[in-house]
């Protein structure tokens, strides 16, 4: 799966490296939930800068991860949504429920530190 999940300070940083199939999105979602539980993470950053499409399936999966994490007291920040992808999501009417967003990894870490 073209995704890396790293632990940095008390946070998990998940970077998606390339386009994902729906099957890979599900694997990513599930492995992220396992890692969050294993490391008792308080904050999770998901870097989606490599995604050139965020459709209804990806949006829903990110929201599921964030909602589940939130029930365990952990905050999820999605970073790196490309400008054209943001416009398409907005036009589509897609929402990221229970997800915080930041411009990039650095801004995401700042948000979690606050």
């Amino acid at each position, binding site marked *: 799966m073209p995704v890396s999940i790293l632990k940095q300070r008390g946070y998990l940083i998940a970077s998606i490296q390339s*386009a*994902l*199939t*729906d*099957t890979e999105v599900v694997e990513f979602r599930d492995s992220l939930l396992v890692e969050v539980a294993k490391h008792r993470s308080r904050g999770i950053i998901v870097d989606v800068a490599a995604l*050139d*499409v*965020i*459709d*209804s*399936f990806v949006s*829903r999966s990110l*929201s599921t991860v964030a909602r589940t994490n939130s029930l365990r007291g952990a905050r999820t920040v999605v970073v790196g949504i*490309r*400008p*054209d*992808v943001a*416009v*398409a999501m907005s*036009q*589509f*009417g*897609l*929402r990221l*429920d229970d997800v915080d967003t930041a411009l990039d990894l650095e801004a995401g870490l700042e948000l979690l530190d606050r």
Partner: protein
Amino acid sequence: MFEEIRVHIASDADTVIARQKGREAALRLGFSRTDATFIATAISEVARNITVHAGEGEIILRGLSEDGRDGMVVIARDQGPGIRDVAAVMRHEYSSEAGLGIGLWGARRLMDEIDVVSQPGEGTTVTMKKWCGFDEVRLLLGD
């Protein structure tokens, strides 16, 4: 303009291929990066409808030139179970639930025209068009 592109859709990996080919074709036809992303996202939704509801089908991409306008047409075709009430599906309001509705609803908002022809038991054909043109977002994003 390019020769017609056909992508056989039988798995979610084919969906990724179809949307990548759709993006490349759109950029070649002169669409902005943002419009190409709109088209790729719409393709992702209709291709998913094929794999989830019909199992397999096909995405066809063509350049368009009509009445002095240039554009692109995306046809998603399957011989799956079909849709009983197309109008009801197109009226779908946003919900986080999975389903046929959200994909077609989104595709309609991302593309300029959409036409859905379906008969129960005879499959579904979705024809979507987008026209090249000026848009404010393109200026805003500088692409």
